[in-house]
């Protein structure tokens, strides 16, 4: 069902354009069914999708609910499905979504996690998966008085996967995860990669065994959805393949 708001024509200034946001709404306190709702939003050239969503929340319908914080793509709060692909609302400009006059942009919650209200999903299973791969440096023996030494090459080995902001865009873009909530998803593997390939870490064996479990890294079907979805540009599928290789050859 699509509800279009009955409103007088929106005023649009010269430097603005009008786009339609088609948003998946769900609030079990009001209606047990989710439905689509459309809003006409005036946007400026540099506006982020987040700005358009804020326009709706602040001036059209205060009940529209979504998470957001930093608004420039470093906190990972506002991952959502935009025109069918996972994006951070604060890191995609409306004009880059084909947001020209009259165009419609669809916005839905990320898939595979339970929707709680509008664009807010239950993140707990996602964080549980993250915790299960022992996401912390494991070392033995006494700490040195100063820093541990690490060559620039060794540091570069895991650079890509340190960028992860845990927005869940990759995990919720993965078709395996959509159907199998037990699969811990790309993000947890990325996090494991960050430690497995850190020359200072001594927990690689342990993590590799965890990833070798039935719902582990072998569930990956290499669809590259995760790599496409990552707002930080992490080569997620590559990281997963590197973990698989480490498991086969038992060499990091």
């Amino acid at each position: 069902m699509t509800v279009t708001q009955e409103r007088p024509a929106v005023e649009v200034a010269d430097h603005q354009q009008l786009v339609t946001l088609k948003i998946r709404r769900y609030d079990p306190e009001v209606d047990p069914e989710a439905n689509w709702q459309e809003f006409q939003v005036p946007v400026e050239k540099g506006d982020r999708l987040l700005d358009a969503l804020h326009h709706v929340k602040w001036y059209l319908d205060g009940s529209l609910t979504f998470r957001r914080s930093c608004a420039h793509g470093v906190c990972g709060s506002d991952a959502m499905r935009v025109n069918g692909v996972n994006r951070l609302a604060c890191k995609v400009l409306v004009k880059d979504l084909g947001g020209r006059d009259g165009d419609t942009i669809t916005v839905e919650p990320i898939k595979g996690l339970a929707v709680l209200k509008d664009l807010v999903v239950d993140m707990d299973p996602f964080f549980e998966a993250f915790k299960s791969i022992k996401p912390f440096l494991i070392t033995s023996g006494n700490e040195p008085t100063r820093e541990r030494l690490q060559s620039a090459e060794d540091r570069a080995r895991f650079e890509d996967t340190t960028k992860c902001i845990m927005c869940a865009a990759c995990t919720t873009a993965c078709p395996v995860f959509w159907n199998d909530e037990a699969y811990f998803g790309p993000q947890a593997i990325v996090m494991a990669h960050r430690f497995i390939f850190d020359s200072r870490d001594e927990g690689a064996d342990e993590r590799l065994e965890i990833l070798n479990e039935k719902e582990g890294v072998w569930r990956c079907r290499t669809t590259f959805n995760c790599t496409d979805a990552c707002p930080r540009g992490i080569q997620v599928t590559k990281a997963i393949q590197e973990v698989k290789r480490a498991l086969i050859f038992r060499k990091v």
Partner: protein
Amino acid sequence: MHHKYDVLVVGAGGAGLMAALYAAKGDVSVAVISKLYPTRSHTGAAQGGVGAALGNIGEDHWEWHMFDTIKGGDYLTDQDAAEVFSKDVIDAVYELEHMGLPFSRTPEGKIAQRKFGGHTREFGKAAVERSCYAKDRTGHMILQTLYQQNVKEGTTFFNEFHVLDLIIENGRCCGVVAFELATGEIHTFQAKSVILASGGYGRIFKITSNALTLSGDLMSIYYRKGLPLEDMEFYQFHPTGLTKLGILITEGVRGEGGILRNKDGERFMERYAPTIKDLAPRDMVARAIYTEIRAGRGCGPAGDHIFLDLTHLPPEQLDAKLPDITEFARTYLGIEPYTDPIPIQPTAHYAMGGVPTNIDAQVLRNNTDIVPGLFAAGEVACVSVHGANRLGTNSLLDINVFGRRGGLSAAAYANSLAAHVDLPDNPVDDVVALLQRLRDGGGTENVATIRSELQETMDAHASVYRTEETLKQAEVDIAGLKARYVHVGVADRGLRYNTELLEAVELGFLLDLAEVMVVSAKARNESRGGHFREDFPHRDDVNFMRHTMAYKDGGDIRLDYKPVVQTRYQPMERKY
């Protein structure tokens, strides 16, 4: 619902996570409450680095760092705090490395360091490489590393719980009241020690590098109890934010060789700070930029911004050292930093002031006495290490050094108490009444409209340049907005994730803090660090070498003053 812990940490950014780790070492039960998920905290947005005199590149000593911090703070810094700070931070950086923080490395494999604004060798002779960094995502790495350590230690987290009241009974803090976003339920948390680590309030300004969630909640809650806020007139404007958006472009860009240019292409910082030029402290650079813009030397059709020029730096260096900020320029402005300069303008960045504490992070209820059971660390607190102007990198030190001290103090205090202090009879009444008034009041004023008018007036009248006249105007505007705030309406009547309701509550906090800032600023008839009065353009050590303490007194604000602690270094004129 009721919860009981020995130590409660409010806020899960760097300071809160560090405090939780150190409190847990004291064999006490610890819980962390945050209105976000921990990894969303704004510590993650910090870029440039964490300054410590490791001397990995060039010779460096903690005394030089201490001096720079004091001089950078325009001598309003409490020197005992600065001493503790510059000594402790060296171990703090090594500890972060041991926890797994992936610092960038020197060719010998040591932690890499680079130059940063205001950090000098031999008491001001030349810029020194002191900022330890992990590319341009140092804050992200600190936040991730500290969260990882908390996962390792099994810390209890209450995520998406919005703290709306502190319970202070007979002068002692004994818990907090929080609103659970997912259900709308009100929870009471009883605790022997409460550590405030909830960050700043940059959202009183329109152009800000701060997250949308930084509304100074706990500062305001503390202040509403008639307890003081220190040095609220001192607010830092970071010189380089993306124009119009305010997104932070790290000082590390200039540390790597980036140059500020006006519309004539002139490297104008040579005129304002002949010795260290573009690497002068933030307050001086921000003022220099506005001076250029006012003199008609701004860039762009409206002449309202300045260029940050990186085009002379090799693209490989930008990719290796500053990958994120080049990406910001491309994503948000469509600018290619390899070939084109980045348009920037100063952006509201950091509160030097806040909840007054001593060097053990104990919160002060006046110039000398503490509130037993209450601690604060990070941006929410004013120790005061940063004085009138914080140096770049020093905030990431602050969260580590004082987060740690706060955690230890809180655990020690909790262990000294045999039992929890009893809560008052109806601790949640005030919060319930506040929410009910907003939700069911049927008001017609729009929260977003009032907030944006507040931000406009603060940007126009209380930012980098201030005069008595502009501050009076801001005061009048805020009073008008507060009157309208009484009539705000909330359309969402639900309990589940009612973020509209919480935005309305947050606006109340912002209005309070904006008012305190303006009143404190109006009374300080001098210019010092981040507080610049055009009608009093010089520093006045005779009358104003003292901290402002602002108390809520009925509907008014009462100002008192606290002496500055001076130990090693005597005030001098601040030249770079």
